[in-house]
């Protein structure tokens, strides 16, 4: 766009009305993108080449092993070996139900499916604000825990199923959901307790939180499996899954408490003083003013703790509960499928990846949505 008043020969437009020309080939479209993003400097060129080389080394070999050379249907390992040189997914296909339900009686599995569907409904209702009929769903969410307990465990007209028959993904989901829903309230109480100006309560909370955070989960699970019964009145004895749930919940609550404490500390003192000045009592001030803000700030941390808890549920195999990994390892003892550990591990890894990734994405979405711009 120039201000030239002279019109050079061959120019068929008035000065000042130059039509927008497309940018040069090298400054637009894929070429520019590639030049900018992949080859902008010598260091970048080297990195790009290295990355492409690494991809070339990994992807084709892995894809061949996992997909094109793999076997999906076979009766046992030997058949797998005959049919293909790659992974033997037939193992997973054959034992799909064991991986999902553990030893849950076959005739009763509809109960697990129903519970899971209801759980999904509740989760969608809780997470998706514009969901139709959300009010009813939320009301339903209050009775859901009892309903789920009844459906899964049986009794009152349904056949009883004992917890040792639980296993597979079902067990992971149970540990995850129970741990997640109980650790949040306990964590909030612990965080408030730690901030409290009553020294005994404060130090009790600090002691608990720091103890739990100082030891590995697996030692706590060992305590649950070997020692907890020593600390209960003689003769009492409750089941392993329950003990594990308690330990996992306590473990997650200590971490949750620290995350929420971070949120509480970020609330300016003025807020609390204002609440006091308004004559609000402690719990009212917390419930109406401090916690809503603090929880909002801590959402990423809370979700991270959830994800951590969910992933940590794999540790239960060390004390003999059969989560998917445990089912996989027990199944490897079967002579039909022996030696397929890589397939099992990858399969379970994919399962965890999908569920944890979904949680992480949701937290990102929530973070953006709730970011009402108080931060600069």
């Amino acid at each position, binding site marked *: 766009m120039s201000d030239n008043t002279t019109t050079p020969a061959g120019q068929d437009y008035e000065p000042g009305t130059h039509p927008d020309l497309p940018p040069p080939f090298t400054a637009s479209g894929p070429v520019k*993108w590639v030049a*900018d*993003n*992949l080859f*902008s400097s010598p260091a*970048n060129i080297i*990195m*790009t080449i*290295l*990355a*492409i080389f*690494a*991809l070339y080394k990994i992807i084709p070999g892995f894809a061949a092993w996992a997909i094109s050379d793999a076997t999906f249907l076979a009766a046992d390992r030997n058949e797998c070996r005959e049919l293909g040189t790659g992974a033997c997914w037939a193992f997973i296909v054959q034992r799909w139900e064991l991986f999902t339900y553990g030893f849950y009686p076959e005739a009763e599995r509809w109960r697990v499916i129903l519970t899971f569907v209801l759980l999904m409904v509740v989760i969608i209702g809780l997470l998706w604000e514009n969901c139709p009929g959300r009010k009813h769903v939320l009301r339903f969410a209050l009775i859901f825990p009892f309903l789920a307990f009844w459906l899964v465990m049986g009794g009152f007209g349904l056949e009883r199923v004992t917890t040792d028959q639980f296993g597979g993904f079902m067990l992971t989901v149970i540990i995850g959901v129970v741990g997640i829903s109980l650790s949040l309230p306990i964590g909030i109480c612990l965080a*408030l307790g730690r901030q*409290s*100006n*009553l*020294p*005994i*309560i404060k130090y*009790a909370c600090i002691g608990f939180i720091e103890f739990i*955070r*100082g*030891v*590995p989960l*697996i*030692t706590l699970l*060992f*305590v649950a499996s*070997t*020692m907890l*019964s*020593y*600390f*209960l*009145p*003689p003769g009492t004895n409750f089941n392993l899954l329950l003990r594990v749930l308690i330990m996992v919940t306590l473990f997650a609550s200590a971490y949750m408490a620290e995350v929420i404490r971070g949120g509480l500390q970020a609330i300016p003192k003025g807020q*609390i003083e204002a609440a*006091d000045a308004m004559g609000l*009592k*402690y719990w009212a001030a917390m419930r109406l003013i*401090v916690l809503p803000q603090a929880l909002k700030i801590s959402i990423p941390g809370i979700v991270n703790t959830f*994800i951590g808890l969910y*992933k940590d*549920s*794999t*540790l239960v195999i*060390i004390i003999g509960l059969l989560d998917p*990994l445990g089912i996989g390892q027990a199944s490897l003892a079967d002579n039909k499928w022996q030696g397929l*550990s*890589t397939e099992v*591990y*990858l399969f*379970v*890894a994919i399962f*965890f*990846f999908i569920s*944890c*990734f979904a949680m*992480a994405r949701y937290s990102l979405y929530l973070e953006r949505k709730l970011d009402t711009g108080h931060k600069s």
Partner: protein
Amino acid sequence: MSEQTVDSYTAAAPQRNVVSRIWNDKQTRSVIVQIIALILLLLFFGSMVRNAIANLEALGKGFSFSFLSTASNYDINQKLGWEYDSRSPHIKATLVGISNTLLVAVSGIILSTVLGFILGVLRLSKNWLTNKLAHVYIEYVRNVPVLLHILLVHGILVHSLPAPRESKDLAETFFLNKRGLFLPTPETPFLGYAILLFFGLVLAGLVFSYFFKRWAQRIQDETGVGYPVFWINLFAYLVLPILVTVGFLLFVGWEQPELKGFNFRGGGVIRPEFMALWLALSFYTAAFIGEIVRAGITAVSKGQTEASLALGIPRGKTLSLVVIPQALRVIVPPLTSQYLNITKNSSLAIAIGYMDITATIGGISLNQTGREMECMIIVMALYLTFSLLISMFMNWYNSRIKLVER
């Protein structure tokens, strides 16, 4: 966070009964609440202890640590220089376990920090491909349980490395096979001397660098002449000791690993269990550290860099004097908890048979003696101590680098 009730409010209602008056007085109420909490706590712990005593008595088990001095009866493969065999007491097995835990924790912390910083920088790189690759890596690793990573890496190592007889070798000196990486070590007395020499020099170097830094600072304050303090000091406490130690080692006798019978004999070995645990823990934690580093660097506002460049400070110095010190303030606190996590996660060693604390005193010793209570107390106390030490060190470091408020 105080439960404030305005005092005059209480005073204005003297006709209320005593209970309500006491309850509405802030001071007395907090005392009452605390006394109740204390009583509940004491009751809780008291009943736990009482139950434990009753239960142990019912089982006919006492509570004593005397088993620690009886022979352990089992062997440990990675002894790290301890004179341990199956006649040694349990306490020695515990010590071996502690050194193994510390070894994997410290090497994991080092490797994950290096990898994490690389990942963090790659995530910020302008190169689309490496950026996305780093992103995919981080998302995959973070969203899969660490136990799976450990099992997977161990499985891959054991299945893909060659058998001892077909070992891959590097210059006939290093051998890599399913049993581990075999490498030559200096003959017995010299290794000890070399370690002493190295740490002695490091200490001397640190003392030197402390005084040199103060001296250089004074000179700079007085004359404006700057010295490359960081590099000179790095040379003094790291490069020089390494060079001298390596030089010393070059002149002493070396023990070569040799294939004899089933395995290599002589020299040192890094076992696949250690490698798997170390690599898996490092890869896993590096993904978290990568995100922490990225967040730390992006937290330093662009204006800082621009201002620094505008003042004519070169790019390298801008990075080392302006950006990194500010980023570190954001990075160090979450980094501390990652270091704690790596230490605690090292207890998963038990899944692949690496003999750390959980596998020795908390595993085999516990099982062979049946002393659950004592063994678990020892294990937990040890982990708590490690956590405390790491927190103390990182807090000290954090207080050194944090913003000095005036």
